[in-house]
């Protein structure tokens, strides 16, 4: 922040506002860090399908479960601490540990049989093909009795 300014640009309130914003932002970050979700999920719409990606580093495939029912996709699993680490031997512990579960309401109907999932470099990618033929269907109208 410039200490010295020319002309009428001097506006202490704006500076104050900006400072407060900055402080609040900092607080916000620390709140989120304490109550963090795991894993983080992104969902993209690629016209004929949805693609879900989740950052789940360090999970064994056997500990990963993916289910879809009634338009809700659920992923759950367990993230185990290293067997050799004792609870009191941690000097720093920031990584998520334990059982987790995330559910996501899918925006459109999904072809649940056509779903595919892949886990690579700690990122889970799920391809969710949309149900084809949702296009408007014309319904023939017959003339009823008068």
């Amino acid at each position, binding site marked *: 922040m410039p200490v010295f300014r020319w002309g009428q640009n001097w506006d202490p309130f704006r500076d104050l506002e900006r400072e407060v914003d900055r402080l609040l932002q900092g607080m916000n970050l620390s709140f*989120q860090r304490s109550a963090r979700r795991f894993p983080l999920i992104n*969902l993209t719409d690629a016209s004929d399908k949805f693609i879900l990606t989740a950052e789940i*580093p360090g999970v064994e495939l056997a500990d990963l479960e993916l289910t879809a029912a009634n338009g809700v996709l659920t992923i759950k699993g367990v993230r185990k601490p290293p067997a050799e680490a004792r609870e009191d031997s941690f*000097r720093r512990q920031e990584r998520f540990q334990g059982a987790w579960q995330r559910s996501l309401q899918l925006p459109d109907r999904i072809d649940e049989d056509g779903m595919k999932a892949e886990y690579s470099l700690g990122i889970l990618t799920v391809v969710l093909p949309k149900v084809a033929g949702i296009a408007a269907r014309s319904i023939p109208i017959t003339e009823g009795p008068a």
Partner: protein
Amino acid sequence: MSDQREIVRATAAAASDSNAADESAPRLLFNPPIDIYETAEGLVLYADLPGVNAEGLDLQIQDNRLALFGRVKTVAQPEGIVHEEYKVGDFLRSFILSDDVDHEHISARLNNGVLRVELPRASRTEPRRIEVSTE
């Protein structure tokens, strides 16, 4: 503010210059979460680096500073996003090592987006007795 990671700084300069040609978009840089614990042999460090493979990982020790830089393979922010909780970016974090870490024998392994670094304790030199003689 769906992003829980601290954005250290967003910069294009952090990208290594070797293959920056195809990516003019600025790369985000994150501070990865870590665990450090003590074992009988020394210290073990874990860092979450989703999307980073062994080629993209750079681990350096200079003096007493251990720096890890993880470059993600794909940096393009996805298109058609419907729901977003994280952004794609590189990872950077550095640590000051204590003197009793044996710098020569640090080993690292990257598996499923998690880096594990073993920092063995340097073996202490045996106390040596100095004979004192009188005149």
